């Protein structure tokens, strides 16, 4: 029964490799994009913490900056 599902009348190698390639492609792209996102969030958090007091006051009042900081795990 299980071997029938795996072998698929001799077409298993083609079917499984096509599905495996698709799933590996999905996982790879997801991890690459997720890594880039985390890297940018980390960089943003660092740059924000290094802002001078006056600049910090200006930046903290901008909605987009606030939202990004919220998602970078920073306490505003």
């Amino acid at each position, binding site marked *: 029964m299980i071997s029938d*599902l795996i072998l*698929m*009348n001799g*077409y*298993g190698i*083609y*079917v499984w*490799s*096509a*599905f495996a*390639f*698709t799933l590996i*492609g*999905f996982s790879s*792209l*997801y991890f690459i*994009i*997720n890594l*880039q*996102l985390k890297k*940018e*969030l980390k*960089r*943003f958090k660092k*740059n*924000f913490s290094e*802002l001078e007091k006056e*600049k910090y006051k*200006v*930046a903290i009042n901008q*909605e*987009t*900056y606030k*939202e*990004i900081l919220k*998602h970078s795990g920073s306490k505003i």
Partner: protein
Amino acid sequence: MLYNIMFKYFNPYKIFKINSTLQKFVFFSFIIVLSIGLVESLFLSPEDYLQKDSVRIMYVHVPAAWISLGIFSTIALLSTSVFLYKNKNLILVSKSLAPSGMLFTLIALVTGSIWGKPTWGTWWAWDARITSMLILLILYIIYLLSFRISDDKDKSNKISAIIAIFGAINIPIIKFSVDWWSTLHQPASITLTEKSTIHSSMLVPLIIMTAAFALFSILIFLMKYNTELIKIKNKGLKRL
């Protein structure tokens, strides 16, 4: 009027906020739909009377091809709008759509090649449909690389938009290649205007897998858009 609506809804802050909330929801929906699709396409759907079990490759090959074409058409449309409405956010949207479009084109080509071996007896043929899909993959690569051509952002944005608009010529070629030339591919079995010639037992898993693939491209788009937006805001911090 249209410009005002676009400016209102393509506001970076609003998009970032919605994107961040949507990401988890889309991710879980994708996992659920993909799981159902995999069970349906690998175990529950019947084998084909002629192609036997190799027909199951269709459930990854066809949705990947459909979505890759859909994404490039959207990029071309948005790129045209960039010139019409001068909205830079549309470039960001296009740029964020491209990675998943490129992956789906690659999946369509590789799974098509795997399917070709048991069906046609060859991994590759310079058939009109396959060649035009290969051109689409090259167009995606050039489009993504074009953003790195120049340090002048406006210049590279213009170049990428031009590539997308000219690249759109390839879309009808891919679509109608099976009608215009004698190819190894069969004519379309599913059209918007006519009744599908695929039996429902095969059509249902095909639709489910298409939905799963669409959800994946939305997920990657949301993540990539936020990454690009943070990149811009990072530069903005330095200019404060």
